[in-house]
């Protein structure tokens, strides 16, 4: 059944208003996937964190949101991709309280806690891709 609503969204991120646009789009799509209540807020918050990392560290990038429907489970995938400077030490960047950008240092480790799956790929001088997934809880 087609509702006329797309099941994927791409948002260009290059200024702080785009952070708001990305998390609002994420909340809409997540609600379409069947997420409710606090899960919608967790997803919107995680998107806000990875989108801000793009603005602060890479200046420019993109967030892709995709509805997932596999093995009888539904979910939302968030891919935050930039062609920025890359992360020199991913292990350090994943530690609570570590920041080179003057922030609280909770962006990446926090986003990992908010979501179910977390993957990060980063190459110096090439860019960073963070992939987040959350699945609708059954029952």
């Amino acid at each position: 059944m087609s509702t006329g609503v797309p099941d994927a969204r791409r948002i260009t991120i290059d200024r702080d208003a785009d952070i708001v646009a990305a998390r609002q789009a994420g909340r809409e799509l997540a609600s379409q996937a069947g997420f409710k209540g606090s899960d919608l807020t967790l997803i919107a918050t995680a998107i806000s964190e990875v989108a801000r990392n793009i603005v602060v560290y890479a200046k420019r990038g993109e967030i892709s949101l995709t509805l997932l429907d596999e093995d009888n489970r539904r979910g939302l995938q968030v891919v935050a991709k930039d062609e920025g400077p890359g992360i020199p030490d991913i292990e350090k960047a994943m530690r609570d309280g570590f920041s080179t950008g003057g922030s609280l240092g909770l962006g990446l480790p926090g986003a990992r806690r908010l979501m179910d799956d977390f993957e990060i790929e980063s190459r110096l001088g090439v860019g960073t891709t963070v992939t987040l997934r959350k699945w609708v809880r059954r029952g």
Partner: protein
Amino acid sequence: MSVPILKLGDVLIASIQLEQTDAELLALRDRLTGQVGDARAQGVIIDVSALDVMDSFATRTLRAIAYSSRLRGAHTVVVGISPEVAFSMVQLGLELGAVSTALDLDDALAQIEEHRRSEHRRA
């Protein structure tokens, strides 16, 4: 649109009506910090119930408002953190530091009254 700041006696009330960008939150911080001095405010109340998320940036900015207001003699109370937002802040690992919280405006005003009394006792 900038956040309206209302004045009730010596209390400033910032009532956030819409989602805020980072730049808008910083502008609110600067206006509040300035007005605390101008109004010789004893209390600052920030209503965040219109915010759909309290991420690390929003939390850091609220903390900055509370710290700088405290240096200028005012007590800051944040009202309107929904259960969903509270849960998400815990997962993210956020702490509010010097920021007090209240469930509603009555409770926030009572906290500021308490702060005013303790300041008087000290004086």
